[in-house]
């Protein structure tokens, strides 16, 4: 019983982080039906932004969160204006190859600039700290990352549901052409979607720096899980990303615990595969 609770909580904590990662991807997809294959690399650069802030400016990884958010946002804006926008007039395959190329460019660019080494934050408010809550020992860094994820998720969700901009983004996602005739500048909505996607990925990266290593290839570790989360929740669905993220986190820990650690990704992908097979729109996807 204790183990179930212990493991379950850690699954939910990681799940919230996956959800935040999935959020940016699903928003971009929702708005413009483009899969950003470089999303994991946005995360990676967010991690570097967070880590470098920590290493050279202020020895607290949490201080890197806003910096990484800005870096991520800038990255999203640049990726959209310099690359994706030009690909929109081409066939969908051009967008796939375009963002795939961006992924390779960023990954190997980071390898060239930062070197292959793994870097880790070793001090900070929540780095390597325990949080004891009602007899349970939790990783403070993960609790903070999960809380940060939940907070950002809530913020984005409220923005989408409650503001003029949010409704405009949703309208663009729902029907781009109709939105345009309602006076919505849908090109600008694309840009905002990419900025939002980049910013959330960047901030997720900086939150990870509290307990995860940073390396040029770290994007790979998370991108498969992120894509799975988005597909599971339903491409374009924001609440779906949240539920799927937590689900993936729980499947991961319980597979490792009950079945076998080497099968955990296999089980996640199987669930994903079954969902694609029997419910192609994902758990909460539209249409």
């Amino acid at each position, binding site marked *: 019983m204790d*183990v179930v609770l*212990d*493991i379950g909580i*850690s*699954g939910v904590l*990681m799940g919230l982080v*996956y959800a935040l990662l999935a959020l940016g991807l699903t928003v971009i997809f929702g708005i413009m039906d483009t899969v950003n294959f470089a999303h994991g690399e946005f995360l990676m650069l967010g991690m570097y932004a967070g880590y470098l802030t920590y290493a050279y400016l202020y020895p607290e990884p949490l201080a890197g969160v806003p910096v990484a958010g800005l870096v991520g946002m800038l990255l999203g804006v640049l990726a959209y204006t310099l690359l994706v926008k030009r690909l929109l007039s081409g066939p969908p395959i051009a967008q796939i190859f375009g963002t795939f190329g961006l992924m390779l460019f960023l990954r190997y660019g980071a390898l060239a600039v930062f070197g*292959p*080494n*793994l*870097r*880790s934050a*070793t001090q900070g408010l929540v780095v*390597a700290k*325990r949080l004891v809550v009602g007899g349970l*020992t939790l*990783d403070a860094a993960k609790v903070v990352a999960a809380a940060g994820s939940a907070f950002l998720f809530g913020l984005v969700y409220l923005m989408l549901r409650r503001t003029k901009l949010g409704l405009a983004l949703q309208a663009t996602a729902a029907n781009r052409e109709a939105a345009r005739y309602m006076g919505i500048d849908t090109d600008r909505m694309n840009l905002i979607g990419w900025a939002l996607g980049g910013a959330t990925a960047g901030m997720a990266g900086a939150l990870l720096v509290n*307990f*995860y*290593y940073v*390396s040029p290839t770290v994007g*790979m*570790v*998370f991108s498969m*899980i992120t894509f799975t989360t988005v597909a599971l929740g339903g491409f374009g669905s924001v609440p779906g990303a949240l539920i799927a993220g937590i689900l993936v*986190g729980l499947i*991961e*820990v*319980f597979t*490792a*615990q009950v079945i*076998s*650690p*080497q*099968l*955990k*990704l296999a089980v996640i992908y199987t669930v994903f595969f079954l969902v694609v097979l029997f419910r192609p729109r994902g758990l909460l996807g539209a249409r």
Partner: protein
Amino acid sequence: MLRVRRWIRTIAAVLGLIVFVGTLPSAAQETVKIGVILPLSGPLAPTGQELRRGYELMVDIVNNVYPELAALGLEVAGWNGIPSLGGAKIEPIFADSRGEPAVGADMARRLILEQGVVGLMGAYQSSVTQTVATVAERHGIPLVNSDSSSPTLTTLGYEWFWRVTPHDMIFDDDLFNLLDGLVEGKAPGVPAVPKDSIRRLAVVVENTEFGSATGNDIVNRLAPERGYEVVEYMRYQANSPDLTSETARLVNSGADVYLFASYVSDAILFMRTLALRGAKPTLIWGQNAGFTNPDFVQALGPALHGVLTRSLFIAKIGEVRPIAAAINELYRQRYGTNLSEESAREMLGVLAWAHALNNAGSTNPRALQRALNELDIPGDQLITPWQGIKFGSRRPGEKNQNIYATGMIGQYQYNPETGGVTLEIVYPFEAATADMVFPFPGWD
């Protein structure tokens, strides 16, 4: 027409130049060419460079007189080239395998047929070494390996393949020698411990060839042979985003000893997660790889106090072996870093070649084969705490394996005064550089 003739003339001139340059070294004729196949490009390029440095430094020591090293008793340091070959210098010829078996074999063929090398070294990845070995076998050219650790290489009956360094099963043996030594009271500074305090093992390996080779050898061979109980054999997903569940499983297994075969990313995550959980096994050991990586040390620092790792070479050996200290100093002057496991490996290989060439007194392949088969270099010539280099068999079916080769086991020890973490040698016991910290102190 005119233009064609000019082209032909240019090409002829270039070809002539190539032929001329190609004949230059053989015209000099005072060198002994040894071909070295290494992964010099591709993902392992940095490792390839490390290996190459070790090779180059030792060749330099053989080819030129180093009085300070000679004074410490290093025979080859007094040489000016190979004495019995009239002072012929060893000429290294590097070839890039790109880490691919087929490319490695092709390079071996070219080195033999086009460059006329008298011997080969390399090729780091066991899969590449194996294809190179088949080429060496076919052409009857000796291949002396000091950088591949797959146990099978010395069980294939090759007549032209010798291995100077230990293979993975020897490294696994070392671990159990350490465990048995603890029970027998042989570990430095640790009184004999009851076997029950280290009997229950958890074996945690990544789900790759590397992981399962180590895992299976421990679980299927050594643990039953030496009377230990494996309470958890965990093959985990390499490069995991999270290892909380795995760690919980490990802690709940109640094992005394945690044994890991992990690369650096997972090694960092495992140690961090174990620390947060306050796990307290009596011993933690890592199978090299991630556990000797500088990034691992940077990430964890003092939290590593008491963690053990296997390594072929630990620079601290200089404290008990003056020759190793002097060579390490030379290496530092030249390259700015300590001798690493990789550079140490190639130095041992070149050393074996130098003695074999000198003993043979000829570059004739048969003479070299005999010299290698009969090679017996005493331990005091080495930078490792071995009894020497002598090829033979330590287990059934094995051939041309250095029977004295062993690994080292280091322990990370935190010094609160300096604030630094050093890797001290605790095995082989007679080469220990510090008292062993036992049991593992935990993370509080």
